[in-house]
């Protein structure tokens, strides 16, 4: 832990993430205005003023307040989607790698499909049918991304099950479930943690992208992707409407990327640079 505190990747990443988490948790206390409150007088108010630090949007809503509340959407989508995908993927990968057979073959074919079908296209197809919404976006992410976790855990399981300590546990009469969960799972979790951290960063970007396209979070809820979609329309007149929400996304994603990079270097010395 002492070493971690000397690593700039860890320190900067952790500070950025903690800052965003604090915004999400204490949003009502931190936001200077009601995020949905439209004030006619403030329409497209310029930033760096006393009332609107980051300016106001086309219908006079305070941008800083909306960014602070928007952290809730981004973090919820990022964390919940990854948690679900990781849970499903780890279980399936563990069973597929341990027992092999049909499930394993099926998993690998699914992985091929998933690799060559971009998420955005898949999300467009599914959301065209089930309609937009935050929980639906999370559902589509979990539905499509668990395969990545399953693939990694499967690979780990395949090599771990041949190792002496696992063989020994089996030989001593441990049940399949005990061998899988107690001996293999814990050792397979290392690469999963790295993938999950970078996955949160990726899913925050994807959610913002889908919301920007009008396929994500409900436009009445303040979200960074939605604010960017608004800002795009006023780019000729008001640079701040699109600039600040984009910075919020970049800072948050950078935080998770830094932490993910740090974890990868720490946990897997081979890829360290």
């Amino acid at each position, binding site marked *: 832990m002492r070493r971690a505190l000397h690593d700039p990747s860890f320190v900067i990443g952790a500070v950025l993430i903690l800052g965003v988490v604090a915004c999400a948790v204490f949003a009502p206390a931190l936001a200077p205005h009601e995020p949905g409150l439209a004030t006619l007088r403030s329409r497209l108010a310029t930033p760096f003023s006393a009332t609107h630090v980051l300016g106001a949007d086309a219908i006079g809503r305070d941008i800083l307040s909306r960014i602070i509340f928007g952290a809730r959407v981004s973090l919820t989508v990022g964390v919940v989607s990854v948690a679900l995908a990781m849970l499903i993927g780890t279980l399936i990968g563990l069973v597929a790698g341990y027992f092999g057979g049909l499930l394993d073959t099926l998993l690998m*074919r*699914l992985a*091929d*499909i998933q*690799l*060559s*079908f*971009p*998420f*955005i*296209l*898949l999300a*467009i*197809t*599914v*959301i*065209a*049918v089930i309609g937009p919404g935050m929980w639906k976006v999370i559902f589509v992410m979990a539905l499509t991304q668990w395969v990545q976790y399953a693939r990694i855990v499967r690979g780990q399981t395949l090599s771990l099950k041949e190792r002496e300590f696992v063989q020994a546990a089996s030989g001593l009469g441990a049940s399949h479930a005990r061998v899988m969960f107690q001996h293999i799972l814990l050792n397979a979790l290392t690469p999963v943690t790295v993938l999950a951290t970078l996955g949160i*960063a990726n899913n925050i*970007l994807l959610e*913002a*992208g889908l919301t*920007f*396209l*009008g*396929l994500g979070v409900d436009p009445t809820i303040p979200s960074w*992707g939605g604010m*960017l979609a608004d*800002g*795009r329309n006023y*780019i*000729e007149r008001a*640079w701040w409407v*699109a*600039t600040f*929400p*984009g910075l919020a*996304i*970049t*800072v948050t*994603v*950078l935080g998770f*990327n*830094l932490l993910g*990079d740090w974890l990868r270097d720490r946990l897997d010395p081979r*890829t360290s*640079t």
Partner: protein
Amino acid sequence: MVAFLLRRAIQSLFVLVGITLFVSFTIRLSGDPAVAMFQGASAPTAEQLTTIRARLGTDRPFMEQYLAFLGSLLRGDLGTSFRTGAPVADAVAQRFPATVGLALTSLLVSLVIAIPLGVLAARRRGRPADFVVRVVSLVGLSFPNFWLGIMLILVFGVYLRWLPPSGYEGPASLVLPSLTLGLILASTTTRLVRSALLDVLGEQYVVTARAKGIREHRVVYRHALRTALIPVVTFVGLQIGGLIGGVVIVEQVFAWPGLGSLALNAISFRDYPMLQGTITVLAVFIAAINLVVDTSYALLDPRIRYA
């Protein structure tokens, strides 16, 4: 070699069947297209619905419809748009060059940026230049592509007025969108070129080349980089899918007349044949590129043939 390519081709075929099956099935879940065709008009009678279902073929079982779709797909027929009544294949063919052109230009931009920067970082490992390249690429990796696009429009289109902010008005319009996607793709590729080159620079043959007194520049670019680019080619192949996904979003930012906007318009008009056709064509394109990439690196690296 032939066996390897054959196996890869069969694998791609499986992927395509999987994707088309998924897309057809999902889109069928959206409800009755016969009802959708009457959207906004007066309520259809039961008789009208039956006629339309028979005409569209939606009264037949799903697998039969799917096989019919595959059959027409092989003949280059993607069905008829609900909205315009024109063949989907025509609309897709008209927009396809804009999307693929943007994707390939972005790829080129990313390689032109990433290879020199990756080489620079690897040669100056641990020095300030390396640090700057790594920080910049990590920040670039965290940019939402559509936001970078908006920022480029703001600077070069709105304030400096050097380039057209959006739409398609000749080659100048290609600059901002391809820079947007290229810069973001370059962030990952730079990191990869750097670490691949660092791996190779420690190899025996590089040490030998240096010992023979070959100039460092030549050692890096002629001897080491050639090997280091093999994982980069693989990576670029894997990125094609993601790149196409990025194109779909960035097309909206720049009002680019490509397949992405075609698909999104199809969603808002509930034009399912159009959506299905667009997604299918993109998926086929991505699978084809992946096959080409696999073939090319099997040619580059003889070890892969036995894998």
